[in-house]
């Protein structure tokens, strides 16, 4: 099968992939987290990949799924932002507009049976309001005060809901960081496609900030004591 036919209509599969993205709303805005790993199947292929990406002045997108599709998304969003800037009409795109645009792109690509293989979180802060929403390769969208993609939906989302729901307006940045860190740790312990190196993005009235890579400290000594599976027999 030719490359053209493959990308044109035939189904593809994700190749180099990122795992979960987490996000929550807190007192001052939105926080997002994703680790720095891009896997090639079960191989930890790239360990310094950034999966949180700023778009314009008020928005961050976080991506799981195919990383080349994500880079393509970054590229066309950059063009979109420049188009918007050069028109100099006094309007600029906020997180809600970027999410809607992305949703239309994702949905129209799934409708051509040529999806962009990603789960994306769109977080932002503009005009005093927080924004947090999801969109994926099917064009499915939803929003909530806490969101998690991939394995995070099973492992982190319950923790995030317990910690955040109903406290969105009181949570401080420090608490939010602590919650994120504990969730990323759970993911690192249980998700085999995750990494102990991750980044945090905060989007507040002050704009977008994406942290340097942070390291998770973990303990594995308990593994010695585990019996019943693995190499040990007794």
């Amino acid at each position, binding site marked *: 099968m030719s490359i053209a036919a493959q990308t044109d209509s035939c189904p593809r599969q994700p190749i180099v992939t990122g795992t979960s993205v987490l996000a929550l709303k807190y007192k001052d805005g939105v926080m997002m987290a994703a680790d720095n790993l891009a896997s090639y199947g079960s191989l930890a292929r790239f360990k310094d990949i950034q999966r949180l990406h700023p778009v314009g002045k008020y928005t961050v997108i976080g991506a799981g799924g195919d990383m080349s599709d994500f880079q393509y998304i970054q590229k066309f969003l950059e063009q979109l932002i*420049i188009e918007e800037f050069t028109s*100099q009409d006094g309007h600029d795109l906020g997180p809600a507009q970027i999410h809607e645009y992305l949703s239309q792109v994702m949905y129209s690509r799934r409708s051509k049976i040529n999806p962009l293989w990603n789960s994306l979180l769109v977080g932002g802060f503009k005009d005093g309001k927080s924004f947090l929403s999801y969109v994926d390769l099917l064009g499915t969208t939803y929003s909530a005060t806490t969101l998690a993609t991939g394995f995070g939906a099973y492992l982190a989302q319950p923790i995030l809901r317990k910690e955040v729901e109903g406290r969105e307006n009181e949570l401080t940045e420090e608490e939010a960081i602590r919650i994120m860190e504990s969730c990323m740790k759970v993911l690192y312990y249980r998700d085999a496609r995750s990494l102990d190196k991750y980044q945090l993005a905060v989007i507040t009235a002050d704009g977008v900030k994406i942290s340097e890579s942070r390291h998770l400290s973990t303990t594995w000594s308990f593994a010695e004591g585990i019996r019943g599976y693995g190499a040990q027999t007794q």
Partner: protein
Amino acid sequence: MTSIGTGYDLSASTYSPDGRIFQVEYATKAVENSGTAIGLKVKDGVVLAVEKLIHSKLSVPEANRRIQTIDRHIGLATAGLLADGRHIANRARDEASSYRDTYDAPSPLKNLAERLGLYTQAYTLYSSVRPFGISTILGAFDKEGPSLYVIEPSGVYFGYNGAAVGKGRQLAKTELEKLKLSELTTKEAVYEAARIIYLVHEDAKEKEFELEISWIGQETDNVHLPVPRELQQDAEAKAKAALETFE
């Protein structure tokens, strides 16, 4: 005009016997009737300024801008037919965008000027088209630092330290030559630009005008932006004051 009635001025694809293309010269005339536009390439940036003549008191302030943005780091000012200016700006945006698409980097102005020069020149070749009635000043801050180009209706383009096109270009050029452009900061250049535009407007005093100024450089994080309102107001006030004492 000697060309009229000879039949050599009816098409851009026809030379006159002495090797001129009158349609291109007429396009240049369209530029000469327009309000002045200037560009200053200075130490840490570029400043563009335009004397926008107001043809009706009923027009909305700040409408029909003649300084346009091409990419984050590129600005464009035109003198001549307003609509031609918009067309060339759109073409420039497409070029800049396609450069980004191909090279994943902002377009160097040198490259953009060449592409636009080629495009403009193509409109001097065919009987089916009319050359652009504009001169275009391009300003940018790219990987080479600040840069400034002018494209003429013929399609020729040159790089400059200071550029002036339109009605008051002669006086403006004289004033620009007096400046030590390479030693000015963009902020100082804004004041000079405002002063020069106010000065060259003296000759067409009966017409109202609006000053447009934009800058690119250290002050703006290398992004093409209109200068802040307070700065422009201050520069205009100083420009008016300077007129009193000039010569």
